[in-house]
């Protein structure tokens, strides 16, 4: 941009910035991606929390008599006192006669939990390692070599290999997905630290005798928050996907636990006849990941416009 227009646009930007604190929320509310993504996410969280109240049955209830039913199949249940009621298999049943609808609804719990925990864990670890690495020269070399090594192993492959080490379970899966995400967060934080420490206001703080830990907390840390929130949403989306992939390949969370990946893994065998066991969880999974990604894009545009360049 030219000097003239830049100043003009700057003038506009600074008029805008003067009321920035008040408008961050307004900007978020005005952003369609944030609103749509956020709304779908809120709905999914609600579904996960209220799973028992949504007309579900026990998702692990096996009923050999009602195996492989198409969506919409009706069944008459007789209670102990003799009253009869009709149960509709909204999404059909799987090869063991479990209700797919119930399993899909309960599956939201695992997916969202994995997404959130992985995001929080990798951000927390990455933030600490990245900050320390960006400010302590001799440590930086070592840390970055380890990170380079970790990054040289394609993420999903590393996760698959890591789950094979321990007994399959939620904790193993979460750790296996978190570890490959850490190097990217470390690099992001480190690059922010390295660029902020060159800022004149940080040098001014050094000149007035501010101690290192205060410089990090006061001047560097606040600059990492917006990019980390954005990065966190992307990690959450990717973690939900990777969890589903691990379960689908049969190396993730044990098959009796209802997760979207597990339901689809079950459904693979009879896919040609009963595609619903792949389609329904697949749609839920895709919509959830889409919502998180949209939320991430929207947050990036409002909180951290400079990051548009990155992915």
């Amino acid at each position: 941009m030219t000097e003239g227009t830049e100043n003009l646009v700057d003038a506009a930007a600074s008029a805008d910035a003067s009321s920035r604190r008040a408008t961050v929320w307004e900007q978020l509310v005005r952003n369609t991606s944030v609103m749509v993504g956020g709304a779908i996410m809120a709905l999914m969280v609600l579904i996960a929390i209220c799973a028992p109240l949504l007309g579900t049955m026990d998702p692990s209830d096996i009923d050999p008599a009602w195996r492989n039913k198409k969506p919409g199949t009706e069944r008459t249940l007789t209670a102990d006192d003799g009253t009869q009621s009709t149960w509709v298999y909204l999404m059909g049943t799987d090869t063991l006669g479990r209700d797919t609808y119930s399993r899909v609804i309960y599956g939201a719990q695992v997916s969202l939990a994995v997404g959130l925990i992985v995001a929080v864990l990798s951000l927390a670890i990455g933030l600490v390692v990245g900050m320390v690495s960006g400010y302590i020269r001799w440590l930086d070399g070592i840390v970055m070599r380890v990170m380079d090594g970790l990054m040289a192993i394609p993420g999903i492959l590393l996760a698959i290999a890591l789950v094979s080490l321990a007994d399959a379970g939620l904790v193993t899966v979460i750790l296996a997905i978190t570890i490959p995400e850490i190097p990217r967060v470390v690099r992001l934080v480190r690059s922010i630290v390295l660029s902020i420490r060159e800022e004149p206001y940080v040098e001014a703080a050094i000149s007035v005798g501010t101690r290192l830990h205060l410089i990090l907390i006061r001047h560097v840390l606040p600059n990492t928050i917006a990019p980390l929130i954005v990065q966190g949403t992307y990690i959450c989306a990717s973690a939900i996907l990777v969890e589903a992939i691990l379960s689908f390949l049969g190396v993730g969370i044990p098959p009796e636990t209802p997760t979207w990946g597990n339901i689809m893994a079950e459904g693979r065998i009879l896919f040609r006849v009963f595609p619903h066991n792949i389609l329904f969880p697949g749609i839920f999974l895709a919509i959830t990941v889409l919502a998180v990604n949209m939320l991430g894009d929207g947050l990036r545009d409002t909180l951290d416009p400079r990051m548009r360049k990155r992915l």
Partner: protein
Amino acid sequence: MFGFIIQRLLATIPVLGMVAVFVFLMLRLTPGDPAAVLAGDNGTPEQIEQIRQSLGLNEPLLVQLGIWVGNLLQGDFGQSYFFKKDVAELILLRVEPTLALAITTLILTIAVAVPIGVIAAYKHGTWIDRAVMAFSVAGFSVPVFVLGYILIYVFAMEVKLFPVQGYKEISDGFWPFLHRLILPSITLSVIYIALIARITRASVLEILGEDYIRTAYAKGLTPSTVLRKHALRNAAVPIVTVIGIGIALLIGGVVVTESVYNIPGLGRLTVDAVLGRDYPTIQAVIIVFSFVYVVINLLVDLTYSLLDPRIRY
């Protein structure tokens, strides 16, 4: 230039070294005694001890690492627990399908992603831009295997355009070979196209804000000339970089896609090895994939100097 190549080559050694150490430690952290596994259910304690000796399992950890790395460098990846075969041999048998799938996917990706990214950047803010961006977010969100099954359902089962699953070697004829690769390649490329289209759009958009683009317009050039001769060329370095980094995504996708389409490649081998807790094979596959990934990104680094005259080594 030559000095730079040497330097970059040397710089990959510590990276690959880290990978080797990780993978080695992973094996040593696993539960169970490899010797006992190799000896099988009927192995006598003597047999097990003999295997322990031959594998060097009684040596200190560092010596074991040395032996193992030494074997790796000679192409000896050890014995598969599961297939009871040389792992190296096993891998060689599985390379062709994976390589074929990766190459077709890569070609498809670049042919689609770069043009739509450039158009989106030029038509910034219009419905075309929004459509490309929407596709890109969606492409990023649809799980590879869900997409795979949808494509099979639509194009192989409802409309019988393609075979449902399976793989034919190129020696069985080019068309049967390619025919079976089309659906898997499309499946695998969608997420990759989403990634590359996005970075292409972002880089071109950024270049379009540069001073020399204004200079180009001030010379009286048409928008298409500006786009082709000035913008795309300067945006090439970040695009190529992400194509290189995206190989990681591609490798992850290969594992899933091969499972969905029943293609007997390295991805399937990985899954089978993990399911069978076949640690030597898992190690070997990780090492091979990481090696390929590092080498590709090394090549990407070396192309920078061809793309941007400012980068001279």
